[in-house]
């Protein structure tokens, strides 16, 4: 027996009929066709399937699609804007924050969530923040480096954005 669900995935609304037992990760991969979200451990431990629901990191293998009905889901495919990689994606690229790459989508989503909560984490805060994600190649050193690099890039971007905002707000006063 199926039920209707309406989810907004990466900014686009979808309406589907699903069985209640369909996991969100299977919905994303098999119904929505978004295969960037990976399935690895199948036991809710490895974090490869991490996505954001209403901006918060969750393991999509441990949520039923029906539970996410009416919510906004962001997957790895939704991070880049207009063909420009998200700063966390860019940093993983530049710092080679991966070896085989299978865990990477989950790490990037978890890291994006971490940086949204804590824009300049310490080494230990990165380790704690990413404790729900496993890299079986043990490429953790470069992953940590990539998160630091993304943090720097994002704080720079924020400074530039606020400077611009101040500039345009100040302009009328100068007239």
């Amino acid at each position, binding site marked *: 027996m199926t039920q209707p669900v309406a989810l907004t995935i990466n900014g686009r609304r979808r309406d589907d009929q699903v069985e*209640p037992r369909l996991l969100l990760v299977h919905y994303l991969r098999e119904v929505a066709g978004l295969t960037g979200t990976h399935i690895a451990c199948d036991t809710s431990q490895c974090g490869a399937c991490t996505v954001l629901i209403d901006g918060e990191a969750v393991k999509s*293998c441990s*949520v039923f699609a029906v*539970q996410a009905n009416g919510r906004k889901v962001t997957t790895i495919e939704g991070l880049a804007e207009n063909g420009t990689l998200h700063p966390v994606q860019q940093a993983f690229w530049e710092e080679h924050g991966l070896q085989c790459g299978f865990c990477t989508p989950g790490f990037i989503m978890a890291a994006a*969530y971490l940086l949204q909560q804590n824009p300049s984490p310490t080494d230990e805060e990165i380790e704690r923040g990413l404790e*729900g994600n496993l890299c079986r190649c043990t490429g953790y050193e470069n992953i940590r480096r990539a998160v630091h690099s993304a943090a720097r890039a994002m704080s720079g971007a924020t400074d530039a954005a606020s400077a611009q905002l101040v500039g345009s707000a100040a302009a009328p006063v100068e007239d």
Partner: protein
Amino acid sequence: MITAPFEYARPGSVDEAQSLLTKFGDDAKVIAGGQSLIPLMRLRLSQPTALVDIQGIGELKQVRRDNGTIEIGALVRHVDIQRNAVLRETLPILVEMANDVGDNQVRNLGTIGGVIAHGDAAGDYNALALMLDAEIVTNKRRHQARDFYRDILTTALEHDEVVTAVRFPVSTGRFAYTKFRRRLYDWALAGVAVQESGSSWRVGYVNLARTPRRGSAVEAALASGASAADAAAQSGSDIDPTSDVRATAEYKRHLTEVLTVRTLQKAAAV
């Protein structure tokens, strides 16, 4: 793995949840964050025929202080506990426990009501509820924590009962919690919680028996003036660990005594 099939409903109120549970019958289950239930369903260790998803019941998301009691709604998540200023002031040991539950992804979904209803001896909050004489509020009655935990994953809840809140005494004395585990996101191999309460100490044990345990013998020794080491030597009669893939029962008993001393010393030093 794929779970067994089930029916799904999302009620808007506690009353509606209860009628759905009555309608679906004995094999229906309440789901909140699902972070314990869904993994069990995927292993088919749990095969409910229906899930009643209470996520939409807003009144269960409140934290309220009522004189000497702090009432925490069942849908308050671990991450909400971590961020709650009132809890940091009135029940800081709970915030410390929340910081170490699972990982960010689990803490963003898992709820305190789920931990209580699941009744797992490994659920950190259950030992705290027991040692602090918390009350578990449901749609039908108030349970005393001391009468609530019956056996492995078995509580006093009836099939159409929904946990709505947990009431803890405001506890601002010295405290410490030690969660011993091999990996950050693991359950406790052994967990020891201590909380100063007036002129006495409360002690709780996580994952050291079929149910959460209160450290009554250790508490009594402390009350009669024993040192931390002498009191901790009594911990063996408060727990009943079993051997498993992680450790033997003997190792867990030794570990518990050592951790009890350390946790008491840590709390006393705060």
